[in-house]
């Protein structure tokens, strides 16, 4: 199992959309996926419930160890390939859920609340890849640096190498980029910050996923415009992430 954690200390950076699109692309490719949700507003759980995917309400399940978490997951998945687990932001059970999820899915996406919190730290410490999404604003860029700094501290503390990529979200929806966007990209490049080459653009179809409680591939033109380009964008993003993980897996195997 690969743990992909979406991390940013700040809210509104596009974390939830990023997690949903990546999860949906994996699902559409026949993969199995668990989304571990740290946001008390539980957007993934609400989406999954309405879409018809199973949800484990972590706070109500009150597991006390990995074995109990594993049983709960097996029971909830029951042949499904996508499961959402909520934790209400309580970090107490995060490690048990992560350890248990490894036995039941190919990919785990951890989506913490957008704030500096210990849930995020725990998920990051166990991540195979951390994606740090940010919108092209100076405020977001500052938070990227703060997130990277804390990530490196967690890396030293946990003794695990943490691979990360910064990724642009809500980017210009076309060939012309804003000045802010260009400046931020240049600054990150100069700092040798590892970045995804694919950015997620600001597209109505991405917002439509939560508005209509569907996967991107299930939306139709009546739900949102620009579907084709949105799907290409989402697929290219997921392909890049999966490609990086695949390379890592091959290196480990070699």
């Amino acid at each position, binding site marked *: *199992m*690969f743990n992909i954690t979406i991390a940013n200390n700040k809210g509104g950076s596009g974390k939830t959309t990023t997690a949903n699109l990546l999860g949906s*692309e*994996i*699902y*559409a*490719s*026949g*993969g*199995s996926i668990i989304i571990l949700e740290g946001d*008390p507003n539980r957007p993934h759980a609400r989406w999954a419930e309405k*879409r*018809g995917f199973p949800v484990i309400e972590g706070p109500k399940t009150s597991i006390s160890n990995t074995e109990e978490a594993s049983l709960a997951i097996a029971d909830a998945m029951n*042949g*499904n*390939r*996508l499961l959402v687990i909520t934790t*209400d*932001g*309580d*970090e*107490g059970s995060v*490690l048990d859920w*992560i*350890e248990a999820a*490894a*036995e*039941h*899915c*190919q*990919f785990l996406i951890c989506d913490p609340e957008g*704030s*500096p*919190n*210990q*849930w*995020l*730290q*725990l998920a990051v*410490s*166990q991540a195979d890849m951390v994606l740090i999404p940010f919108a092209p604003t100076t405020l977001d860029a500052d938070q990227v640096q703060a997130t990277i700094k*804390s990530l490196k*501290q*967690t*890396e*030293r*503390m*946990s*003794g695990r190498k943490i691979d990360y990529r910064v990724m642009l979200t809500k980017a210009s929806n076309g060939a012309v980029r804003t000045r802010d966007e260009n400046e931020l990209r240049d600054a990150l490049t100069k700092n040798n910050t590892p970045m995804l080459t694919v950015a997620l653009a600001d597209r109505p179809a991405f917002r439509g996923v939560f508005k209509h409680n569907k*996967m991107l*591939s*299930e939306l139709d033109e009546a739900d949102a415009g620009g579907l084709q380009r949105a799907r290409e964008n989402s*697929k290219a993003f*997921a*392909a890049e992430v*999966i490609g990086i*993980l*695949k390379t890592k*897996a*091959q290196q480990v195997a070699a």
Partner: protein
Amino acid sequence: MSFNQFDNLDEDPLDLSFAAPQPRKIDKTAAQAAAELSEQKGYHSRRGPAARQEVPQSQPTPETPKPPRNQGRVKISDLLGEEGKIDGLKAQLNFIAPADLISRFAQTLRNRGEPSRWQLLEKSLDALDREGEGAEASGDQLQLSPDMAIALAHVIKRISAEGLAPFAADTAEADLAYDALLAVRRYLEEGGVHVR
């Protein structure tokens, strides 16, 4: 609208064959300690105080005599520098050696099954014993003997700058840090200053 798991399968799917469900063992002690340390840097916890392991606090025992000597001692603020200055003796002590964290680190090191390697500190402690000195608290500044201070200086400076993070990645340094911190506690408590 109804869905099933075979809906919307991509005609040009991503290659996911390299990933498979498989058991993964997590070093929970180290991960939990790292997360708790991050609280010092503003990473909040959603767990209520009742959910946390509380360490009962001992009261200082003022009737216990303290070592009288002050000569040749080094103030902790001198080691930490202005940026690392911590006001209040108790805060300093807890910063250096929070009991619950130390016990977790000790467990982590035991789990790793690696031998202790802290000769530098051991020498310092031997010297300290020979001189019959201990650490003492005076005013609001923790003061240590020069030998102890030398052994601890790099540990404390790095803790000040980066938390305990570097010591978890390097077993030798983790041993050194752990034993140094534990020694400080022991000497302080022998001197009648109880930490937590």
